[in-house]
């Protein structure tokens, strides 16, 4: 496919084949399954080929890009999850009230908003008009990178808007899930029994209702990580944040296939790994499904 692309760009077929061979760790004229095996071999030894667009090894670009995405995604996931759980529980206790209705509707609407719409609107209002936040970039380029307080605060300052965009688009589903989960736990007999025993309200809320209601949400944590990675393509693009999503977004219009493959691979591995972690966490939190 890459050869076809170069031929269309005006290279003669042999030259094109040679150029492509220089970019990928397999011979592009081999049968597909041998190419795939060689690609896997290359992957295991850390060689994903060269980017067409940046003319650099993919592995180098990814090693540079992964920390940025990991920083953004984990920060926004933690904020959105904990905030969503708290709000969801609050709404479950006040269900039927006017606040609950407004929040439920708002949550289901923001859940359906495309991340780039939220991102762009945040940029236009908070960064461009109000000038409260920087327009783009991961940190202030005037501050030398390093473990100084100034640099780290600049990091968080620049991450505010992207994180806010992630949180707005993901918090809705946490709120709604937590609300329905809490409502069903509140109907359980052990809650009534705990109330009858005269346990302090705070204890019932945290260790009886909260703990049991939050459990099912951990199971959907992994899926939401995949969703967030999908959104990172847009949000990092809008904020010029040098993460994986930004590189993926740049490589798509340029049809930089090696780069796209690398980004997709990293994303998928990250999602599968976090899925695994979520499962481990889940079995620690819920003794009922602990193995052995």
């Amino acid at each position, binding site marked *: 496919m890459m050869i076809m692309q170069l031929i269309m760009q005006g290279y003669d077929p042999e030259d094109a084949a040679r150029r492509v061979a220089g970019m990928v760790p397999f011979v592009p004229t081999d049968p597909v399954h041998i190419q795939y095996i060689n690609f896997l071999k290359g992957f295991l030894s850390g060689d994903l080929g060269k980017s067409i667009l940046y003319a650099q090894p993919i592995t180098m670009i990814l090693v540079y890009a992964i920390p940025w995405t990991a920083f953004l995604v984990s920060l926004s996931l933690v904020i959105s999850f904990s905030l969503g759980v708290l709000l969801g529980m609050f709404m479950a206790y006040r269900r039927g009230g006017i606040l609950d209705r407004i929040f439920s*509707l708002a949550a289901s609407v923001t859940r359906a908003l495309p991340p780039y719409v939220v991102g*762009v609107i945040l940029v236009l209002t908070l960064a461009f008009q109000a000038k409260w936040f920087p327009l783009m970039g991961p940190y202030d380029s005037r501050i030398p990178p390093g473990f100084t307080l100034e640099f780290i605060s600049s990091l968080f300052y620049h991450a505010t808007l992207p994180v806010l965009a992630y949180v707005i688009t993901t918090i809705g589903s946490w709120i709604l899930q937590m609300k329905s989960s809490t409502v069903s736990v509140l109907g359980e007999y052990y809650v009534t029994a705990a109330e009858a025993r005269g346990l302090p309200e705070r204890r019932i809320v945290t260790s009886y209702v909260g703990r049991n209601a939050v459990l099912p949400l951990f199971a959907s944590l992994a899926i939401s990580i995949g969703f967030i990675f999908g959104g990172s393509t847009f949000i990092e693009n809008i904020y010029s944040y040098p993460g994986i999503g930004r590189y993926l977004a740049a490589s798509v219009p340029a049809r930089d296939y090696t780069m796209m493959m690398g980004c997709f691979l990293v994303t998928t591995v990250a999602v599968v790994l976090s899925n695994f972690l979520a499962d481990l966490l889940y079995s620690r939190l819920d003794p009922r499904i602990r193995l052995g």
Partner: protein
Amino acid sequence: MAQSISQNAERLVAGGIQDLKASFKIIWRNRVSFSGLIIILVFTLMAAVGPELVPYDRMPRVLDRYLPPSREHVLGTDYAGRDTFAQIVHGSREVLIVAFLAAVLTTTISIVIGISSGFLGGKTDTALMTCADIFLVIPSFPLLLIIVTSIPRVLSALEIAFILSVVGWASLARPIRTRVLSLKEEEFIESARCLGLSKVHILFKELFPNLLPYIAMSLVLAIVGAIYSQVSLYFIGAMPYTSTNWGIMIQTAINDGALINPKVWPYLLSPMMCLVIIQTGFILFLHSLEEIFNPRLRSEA
């Protein structure tokens, strides 16, 4: 709750103008849901007859670049002096056609897989649900990007819809399967089985009508998902250029420095706002569907 849902569904399926009237009344009484229906109708009308009513002049006029909204150009003009409103109207047809096709395909796939998985059970169930889990875990948008970019030609609406549905069926198939599993334990299915009715009868006459509410809701959810993914694909530049698609409009606006140039804002914000409004419309409509099918959610008895 299951009982009330199924009874309600049966009543609805049994048809009769009275029930339609009743459902309409529920939508009518709830102003929020009603506005959702209105939004959907307006956009559908726009997609259906809009392109015939609003002429779209493709001629570039450099002097008219990024005109602010005026009586002549309701939403201003784009980078080549073309009317933004006309582009929105012409683009809406494409967006809605693909979204509708994709939603129908997605729902069909997830119904077939969800029902066969839940109804047949056993090894078929395990195999199908493992498959669904794999699709659920893979980040769907990057996967879409890879699939679309590896097909080196212009895709028709049906092909885009097909790709969208292949990637997106899993999240709808799972709830349908869960529903089938719980319906299978209901007394009316059990008694049908005791009566010796055939599996085909149970499937189509007993099970399927009770799934209809869920299918209707999945359809709406699938439309929302398809609009999002499709516009996103155009926005990120994975699809060939067409001057009227909303995603392309957003992309061109951002590439033209819309984030730092207020003159471009009308061109950037009009497709975005359309997207937000239409998504909100479908979500509000979904709320009213839930209310119709589940009487316990109704605000006033």
